[in-house]
């Protein structure tokens, strides 16, 4: 069970959040071409390790929270606001 620290509400149960996926992909410019949009919409690094991702605090403050979480141990290294740059541990 994940305990996710919302920057606005504090530590909250995973059940309050909706997962919204990989936070490292960024929308390309409108004229970037098909391959850039293919990468943005479909391909993912899918690491076994630290993963920066979005969790939507859907049953709380409705803000998007950026989370650095380990996909094998489920440990959470850092959480922050969408505009924050969060450090990713080496391993």
């Amino acid at each position: 069970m994940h305990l996710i620290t919302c920057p606005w509400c504090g530590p909250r149960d995973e059940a309050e959040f909706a997962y919204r996926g990989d936070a490292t992909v960024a929308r390309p410019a409108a004229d970037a071409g098909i391959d850039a949009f293919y990468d943005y919409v479909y391909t993912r690094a899918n690491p076994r390790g630290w993963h920066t991702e979005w969790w939507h605090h859907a049953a709380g403050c409705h803000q998007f929270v950026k989370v650095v979480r380990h996909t094998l141990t489920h440990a959470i290294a850092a959480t922050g606001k969408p505009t924050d740059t969060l450090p990713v541990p080496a391993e």
Partner: protein
Amino acid sequence: MTRYSAFGLLTKAFGGHAGWGRAWRDPAPKASYDVVIIGGGGHGLASAYYLAKEHGITNVAVLEKGPIGLGNTGRNTTIVRSNYLLPENNHFYEWSLKLWEGLEQDINYNVMMSQRGVLNLFHSDAQKAAAARRGNAMRLIGVDAELLDREQVRAMVPLLDFDNARFPVMGGLLQPRGGTARHDAVAWGFARAADARGVDIIQHCEVTGIRREGDRVVGVETTRGFIGAGKVGMAVAGNTSRVAAMAGLRLPIESHVLQAFVTEGLKPLVDTVVTFGAGHFYISQSDKGGLVFGGDLDGYNSYAQRGTLQMVEHVFAAGVAMMPCLSRLRVLRQWGGVMDMTMDGSPLICRTPVEGLYLNGGWCYGGFKATPGSGWCFAHTIANDAPHRLNAAMTIERFRDGRLMDERGTGPWPWAQ
């Protein structure tokens, strides 16, 4: 290979079951092979078997990091069916089901194939229309499907909550030829049959790198040294992204965890496979008597072969809503498996941009039923360096080209497929 038979079983029984030889060899890896399959689960072993049987390619190795069949082959809920809507999926899964129907004779192994039917319940007029549409799509290509009304469902599965205030059972879509099989036996049976045709099954041999010369693959680095290969096939669902990354590929896949459960043993209670239409829940009963069931993904990227309690509660709630008598049962075991979730919910059996490297993965949580068909199509794709028409649509390029096979119409959200 000694053929298994009823007579052999009887004579061995009188001898105290001494003298059963090992089912497959334990060879050291050779310096090189014509084809190396990465992954000794059902799909990898089936691929090696059909390479040998259908294409005469017997200089083949299957590399497995642990013992065979301990990944998703041993972690599923053993359901076999071909009740899909989209023609690309349905032709493929129907061929797989036909292979299942003759599998035990083909590989001389009892996989306990039991065609007890797969029944999808519906609880509203809209769901009934969708079920009828899917059933008609199945019948159009020759797959068996029957639309049952409420009383016909009651005759099959009397313990459902037919008068649930929120989700009354209105009927169901039945595929009579669907059912279950013994999952471990599928891995063991394919391993034994492939081994008998000369395939080397190399356990405890983890692939750590894929060696290329230019655009062409020439072999794999492993924990037991370099193994040369003319062609390399990946069948490592759950870890497809990691192995493909060794060859520099980035795929439309995320890994997610799915849990499954078994209760204490009971007298016969459910003699078919039932799926809930108002939540994600599916249940059948094993020959030992335990009820085997599962539900949704936990819903976040994970390589942990375990889930969290939130989803345990969710699955049990769905089960009790469908079949209230389950509330008194004790669950004996619970486990998780790592699913390759693709961006459209359909699999990949295809060539890759790297010459000589082939991909079999993206099975989401429907890989078990595909085992023989997947191996058969993958073997064809490797042997001919071109897909069979049954898997021609299952490419990586379909995402870029807008030819998605999105059975549920979910969109590119792997955790929602």
